[in-house]
């Protein structure tokens, strides 16, 4: 089995799987269990200032979007940062670090945007022996209304300023956790870098309203007939997180800025995808909250087998390997042409491919052949959009066939994908420049 040892921004851990700052990391009890289960590291549930602790609602604070089989697809919460006294958390952190010296223990922080407040907490955290800091600039509810969390993360200048304070008053590596509730994720990331951040982590949760109860006509979760927007996470947010992580992964200005990927990671496959798109390690919250800590077994085993199969010796070898496949639309090869094809032996004749193409796309799948129920592609109309493939219930029954040195019967043009044609040089583009 491959060694999954990880070094993220100078923080070592036996594997790249960390638990994100959230309820699973709120107490020594949970964190001990996580380490027993095999997690490589944790980011402790966000700590706030000393003083009277935060108060959470006593009504429901979570709500889920369920799939057909009641699996949790999306998850939402209106929980605040830790509601336990600062002192207690710091004591526990110190003890856990002592008991688990080989695991990564990062402490997440969120205090008011004043230099003194940060300075005071930083020294206390350092005394625990923790390995690093994560600055929670992402929480989208409850704390942001008090001028913290996302309220900071949405203003690049604040991000830079607070990061700089942390670098100044602490010798620990600083990870800046970014909020996805922005239009351009590169701006806060660049600000963090300017402030001296050692790494960024993303994404925190996305603003969301989960659902409306159709009996009571009030939103869910409901607390005494009222509700509020919360943070969305879980498998549903993975594509958004992948986009943001990869956007930083290919941003020249963020080069060499390590990324800790978070958002909908549930298994080794998700983890591998994030690593390939530029993440240095991954953090997990919802998958653990919906299955328990044992899921890490499959993550460790699966990733290590995958690496062996693909010939990657270490986790760092994986990082960013898929980045070169990511480009902007105008650089895609417009000479690359595919057509849908149906394996008639596998086809169960449900007709879904036909009706979606007929009603909403290109009328390129026949429903009948010589009066018989038989689904066949009309290559003269098929644009290769992939819609039918996504709805076919039988695996590998409907696939896309690549055209190579043959005439596309839809356009009548010879297809030669080797001759790349990008929009930037396309004859229909009025702004086309002749040079590549």
């Amino acid at each position, binding site marked *: 089995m491959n060694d999954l040892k990880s070094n993220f921004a100078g923080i070592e851990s036996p594997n790249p799987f960390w638990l994100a700052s959230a309820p699973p990391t709120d107490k020594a009890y949970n964190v001990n269990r996580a380490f027993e289960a095999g997690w490589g590291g944790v980011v402790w549930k966000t700590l706030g200032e000393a003083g009277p602790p935060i108060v959470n609602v006593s009504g429901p604070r979570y709500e889920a979007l369920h799939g057909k*089989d009641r699996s949790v697809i999306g998850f939402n919460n209106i929980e605040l940062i830790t509601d336990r006294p600062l002192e207690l958390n710091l004591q526990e952190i110190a003890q856990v670090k002592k008991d688990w010296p080989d695991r990564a223990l990062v402490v997440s922080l969120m205090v008011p945007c004043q230099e003194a407040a940060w300075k005071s907490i930083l020294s206390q955290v350092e005394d625990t022996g923790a390995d690093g800091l994560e600055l929670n600039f992402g929480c989208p509810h409850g704390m942001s209304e008090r001028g913290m969390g996302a309220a900071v993360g949405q203003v690049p200048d604040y991000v830079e300023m607070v990061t700089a304070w942390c670098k100044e008053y602490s010798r620990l590596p600083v990870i800046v956790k970014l909020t996805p509730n922005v239009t351009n994720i590169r701006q806060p990331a660049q600000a963090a870098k300017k402030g001296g951040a050692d790494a960024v982590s993303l994404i925190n949760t996305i603003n969301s309203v989960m659902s409306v109860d159709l009996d009571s006509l009030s939103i869910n979760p409901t607390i005494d007939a009222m509700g509020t927007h919360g943070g969305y996470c879980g498998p549903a947010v993975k594509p958004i997180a992948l986009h943001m992580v990869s956007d930083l992964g290919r941003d020249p200005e963020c080069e060499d800025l390590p990324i800790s990927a978070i958002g909908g990671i549930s298994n080794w496959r998700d983890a591998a995808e994030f690593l390939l798109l530029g993440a240095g390690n991954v953090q997990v919250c919802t998958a653990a909250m919906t299955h328990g800590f044992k899921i890490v077994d499959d993550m460790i085993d699966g990733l290590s087998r995958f690496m062996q199969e693909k010939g990657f010796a270490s986790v760092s070898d994986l990082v960013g390997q898929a980045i070169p496949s990511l480009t902007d639309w105008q650089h895609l090869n417009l000479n690359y042409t595919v057509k849908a094809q149906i394996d008639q032996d596998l086809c*169960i004749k*449900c007709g879904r491919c*036909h009706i979606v193409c007929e009603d909403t796309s290109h009328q390129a799948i026949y429903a009948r052949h010589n009066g018989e129920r038989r689904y066949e592609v009309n290559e003269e109309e098929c644009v290769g959009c992939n819609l039918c493939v996504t709805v076919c219930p039988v695996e590998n029954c409907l696939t896309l066939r690549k055209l190579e040195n043959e005439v596309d019967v839809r356009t009548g043009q010879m297809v030669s994908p080797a001759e790349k044609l990008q929009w930037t040089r396309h004859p229909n583009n009025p702004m086309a420049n002749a040079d590549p």
Partner: protein
Amino acid sequence: MELITTAHNGPSGIAAERLNEAECQSNFCEMHMPLEENAARVEAERCYFCFDAPCTEACPTGIDIPGFIRMIANGNAVGAAGLILEENIMGGTCARACPVETLCEGVCVRNHGDDRPVTIGLLQRFAVDEALQEGTEFFSRSEQTGKSIGVVGAGPAGLSCAHRLSVLGHNVVVYEARSKSGGLNEYGLAAYKMLNGFAQRETEFITSLGGIEIVHDVILGRDVTVQELQKRHDAVFLGIGLGGGNMLGIPGEEAEGVADAVAFIDGLRQADQLSAVPVGRRVVVIGGGMTAIDAAVQAKLLGAEEVTIAYRRGADAMKASIVEQEFAKIRGVSIRYWAQPGAVILEDGRAAGVEFQPSGDTEAGEKFVIPADMVLKAIGQGSHLERAESAGLFEVASGRLVVDEERRTSCSGIWAGGDCIAGGDDLTVSAVQDGKVAANSIHRALSL
């Protein structure tokens, strides 16, 4: 289901109380447990929402199956029932009685590979039962046309026709020979398919629309003639089903202990107490259709010790599907294939067994006897047109009325449907379709 059987020392001959009432009630439980709400939703999610769905094509009444299943999946069971009842007013009975494995579920695209079909029948039942429970009204009558239609027979064909006609604004009088409505839904379908008086509940639902008057104990051919009906009404629909069972034409057939399977089931369906229904200790059922299966299984559930279905050809030729054959076998019924009945063996003038000649490939084999104190004949029902028909008014083929696509008989102004017409498949669902098609045709004819 735990089948309760009798000890091997019950009285020989035909006797009641082989099992006590509680044991009978336990045996006659639901054939298929109805779906709970959550199970229904999960099952509904399995449907692929096919285009030009093969299941709809296979349904004789053409129910929009993917349409109603999607409504169940989205928590709208009542809407689903509306979609079902629009095409099939007896959706409730059909969900219980249809041989789905040879109809909709048989062609479900999910039959491929090691997958299994969507349980369309159970989903349909879930939706219709839910709507009946809620007492939802789905239909209203169009403006009155002032026309009156006489319908003969309050079975599936007659009631379906009457309902559609009433929706279209006509007034209907249904003439029914027996004291209850429902036809074979009430008198013929197996008890474990139609628990808790469902036939009567459904009839009430159908007639609650108004405009349908059912007159009981009136027999066409005895109390009224076709000509009289034609005078009384603007159109006539015949849905009189079939008559008594066919004869085997073998010696001993008339003896005590030999009975018609349909009559046996009829008695069972109408019994106040199941345990009071007399049944043999050893029962032989002759035939290969749904009636044979139903008679044999119900005899077993009443406490008969040995029940054998004897069929003159092989399993594949049986009109009862393989699924139904399995259903009987699981309940302890033996099926003897390739057995041609030769004679009923008598003892003291009563049936004591049936002698068979091997048929098919093994024709040369030796005759054998299956002992039986009760012999049930299930070889099809005969025509009873003669009784109803007045002097050869109609074109008839093999004792059944010849009709065109719109279910018009050869006699102008008279439509027919259900088991009494030629070329049908003797299923409840087809009778319902006939009634619907005829009603639409009558409406068109009367609107001219």
